[in-house]
C-alpha cells in the first residue's frame, strides 16, 4: 500500500511528461522540451555516478560520443538501421565503462576527476585523428530515427529515456544498491570495512550511467543528423552533464530535471536577451550554486525541509561534508 502511495507521485509526473506533446504543438517549443529531456537524461545518468556514488566524472562525453558514433558508423559502413545502431551504442558503452572504470576507479578524489577528463580527451583526439574510420573533424551524417515532419516521436522517445534514467535513480534511492553507493560516497573505507564491495558497485554504477549516456548520445546524433568530435566528445559536454545535475541537486532524484529545466530554458532566454553574456552568466551561476547552496536547488530545499521536520535517515545528504584527505582544519 505504502509502496503504491510512494509510486503515485512519480507515476503522475511521468504521465505529465508524456502528455506534453498533447498540449505543446509548436515544434520550436517541442524542440526546447526535447533538449530539456536530453539534458535531464544525461544529468540523471551522471547523477548515478557523480551524485550517488560521489565519483565526480568529467569524462562522460566519452560515453556520449561513443554512443553517437556507434549509431553513425554502423549506419554509414554497414547500413544498419538507427535502432540497431542505438542497441550497438549501449552494447559498446558498457564494456567501455568497465574499462574506463578499471583505470579511473583506482584513482581517488581529484585524481579520479582529472583521470576521467584525460581519458575523454584522449578518446576525442583519437577519434579526431583516426580519419580513415571516423572522417575526423569533417564529421559524418547520421540517419534520422523518425524521418518525417513531426518532432513528437523524438519527444516521446527521449521522454521515455528520461523517465527510465530518473526512474532508475528513484529505484536506487529505495534499494540496497543506492544505499551502498551513498555509503561509498560518504566514507569508502568504512563502507568496505563492513563488507561493501566498493569497486564492484562503483563499476556497476558507471556501467548503468554509461548505458544511458550512450543511448542519449545516439539519440542526440540522430536528432542533429550530423556529428563531429567537437560536438559530441568535447570537454564542455562532460562539464554540462555534471553542471545540470549539480545545479539541480546532486544525489537527488529530480535534481537533473530541475537543473536541465533551469539551464536549457535560461540558455534559450539568455541567448535571446543577453546575447554575448549568456555563457558568463552560466559560469557565475555555477559559482553561486557552489558557494551558497552546494547541494543544488533541490538539495537546498530538502535541507531546509529537513531542518523543519524531524530528522530522517540520511540518504541524500548534502555535499558540504568536509574533506576526505589531508589534515587541514578551519583556521582564522
Amino acid at each position, binding site marked *: 500500500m505504502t509502496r503504491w502511495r510512494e509510486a503515485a507521485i512519480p507515476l503522475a509526473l511521468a504521465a505529465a511528461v508524456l502528455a506534453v506533446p498533447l498540449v505543446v504543438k509548436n515544434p520550436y517549443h517541442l524542440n526546447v522540451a526535447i533538449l530539456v529531456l536530453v539534458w535531464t537524461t544525461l544529468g540523471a545518468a551522471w547523477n548515478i555516478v557523480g551524485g550517488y556514488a*560521489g565519483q*565526480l566524472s*568529467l569524462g562522460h562525453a566519452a560515453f556520449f560520443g561513443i554512443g553517437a558514433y556507434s549509431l553513425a558508423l554502423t549506419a554509414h559502413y554497414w547500413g544498419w538501421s538507427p535502432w540497431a545502431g542505438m542497441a550497438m551504442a549501449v552494447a559498446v558503452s558498457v564494456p567501455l565503462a568497465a574499462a574506463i572504470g578499471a*583505470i579511473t576507479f*583506482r*584513482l581517488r*578524489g*581529484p*585524481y579520479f*576527476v*582529472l*583521470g576521467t*577528463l*584525460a*581519458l575523454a*580527451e*584522449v578518446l576525442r*583526439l*583519437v577519434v*579526431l*585523428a583516426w580519419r580513415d574510420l571516423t572522417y575526423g573533424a569533417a564529421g559524418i551524417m547520421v540517419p534520422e530515427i523518425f524521418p518525417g515532419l513531426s518532432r513528437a516521436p523524438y519527444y516521446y522517445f527521449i521522454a521515455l529515456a528520461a523517465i527510465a534514467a530518473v526512474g532508475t535513480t528513484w529505484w536506487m534511492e529505495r534499494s540496497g544498491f543506492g544505499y551502498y553507493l551513498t555509503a561509498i560516497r560518504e566514507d569508502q573505507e568504512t563502507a568496505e570495512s563492513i563488507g561493501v564491495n566498493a569497486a564492484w558497485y562503483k563499476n556497476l554504477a558507471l556501467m548503468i550511467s554509461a548505458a544511458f549516456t550512450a543511448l542519449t548520445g545516439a539519440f542526440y546524433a540522430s536528432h542533429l543528423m550530423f556529428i563531429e568530435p567537437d560536438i559530441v566528445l568535447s*570537454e564542455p559536454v562532460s*562539464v554540462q552533464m*555534471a553542471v545540470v545535475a*549539480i545545479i539541480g541537486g546532486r544525489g537527488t532524484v529530480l535534481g537533473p530535471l530541475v537543473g536541465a529545466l533551469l539551464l536549457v530554458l535560461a540558455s534559450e532566454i539568455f541567448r535571446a536577451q543577453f546575447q*554575448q*553574456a549568456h*555563457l*558568463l552568466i*552560466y*559560469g*557565475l*551561476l*555555477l*559559482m553561486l*550554486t*557552489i*558557494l551558497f547552496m*552546494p547541494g543544488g536547488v533541490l538539495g537546498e530545499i530538502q535541507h531546509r525541509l529537513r531542518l523543519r521536520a524531524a530528522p530522517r535517515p540520511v540518504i541524500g545528504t548534502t*555535499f*558540504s*561534508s*568536509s*574533506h*576526505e*584527505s*589531508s*589534515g*587541514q*582544519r*578551519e*583556521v*582564522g
Partner: protein
Amino acid sequence: MEFLAQLPQNLVSGLLLGGMYALIGAGLALVFGVMDIVNMAHGAFIMVGMYTTFVLCTRLRLDPYLGLLVTAPLLFGVGMLLHRLLIERVAHASHMNQILLTLGLSVALVNLVQLIFTANYQQIRTSYSDAVIRLGSITMNVPYVISFALATGITLGLYYWLMHSEFGRALRATAQDPMAAQLMGVNVRRVQSVAFGLGMALAGAAGALLTPVYYLYPTVGANFGLKSFTMVVLGGMGSVVGAALGGVTLALAESVGQMLVGHELKDAIGFVVFLLVLLFKPAGLFGGQRA
C-alpha cells in the same frame, strides 16, 4: 635516420617551451600540490596573464617582457583577492566543490574576456619577433630564448626564496600541518592567500612570457589546464621544483613524441603520461619531497 637528424632541433624546441611549462607547473604546484586546492582555473589564469600583457603592449606600447613586471604583481593581487573572496570558502570543503567552483570561475573568466576582446585570435609583434639564432642546423627564435631564460630565472628564484626565506618556511609548515603552523605563530590565512596569489602570479608570468611566442584567444588556457596537472603529478605533488621539472619533461615528451605520433596527437601524450604516472608511480618521477 631522419628521426635522429631532426632530434636535436626538436629537443631544443621542447626545452625552450619547457621553460614556460616549468613556470606553469610551479604555479599550480603551489596551489594544488602545497595548498591542496584543486584549481581548475589555472589555464584561465594563464589566459588572463596573456591578455593583460596584450593590452599593455597594444594600448600602452609596453614591451611584453617589461609587461611582465606589471602582469605578475597585478595577478598576484587579483589572486589574493580571489582567495579571500572565493577560494577560502571552499578550502576546507570537499575537493569536488573546489573543482566546481574553480570550473565556474574559469568559465566566467573565459567568457568575460571573450565579451571584452571577442573570440578573435590575436597576437603581438615586437621588433625582435623575427630574430633567429642559428647554431649549426638548429634554429632558435629569439623571443623563445628570452622567454625561456626569464622563465628559468623566475623558477630558480622562486625555489631559492621558498627554501631560504621566512615565508618559505611558513609556507612549508602550513602545507604540512596548518594547525601546528598556526600554533607556532604562523598567520596561516595570510600564508594561504599569498600562496594562492603567487600561484596566480606565476600563471600570469607564464602567460606574459607566452604572449610573444604564442597567440591568444579566450579559450587558450584550455591548452594548459589539464596539462598543468600533468606537470604537478609528474613532479610528485607537493614539490614546486618537481613540478617545474615535470613541466620541462612534458614539453620534451611532446616535442619528441610528436615526431612519432604527429602534431595532432601530441596533447594525448601528456594525458597518457598523466594516467600512467598516477597509476604506476603516484609519487611522481622526481621523488615526493615537499619544496
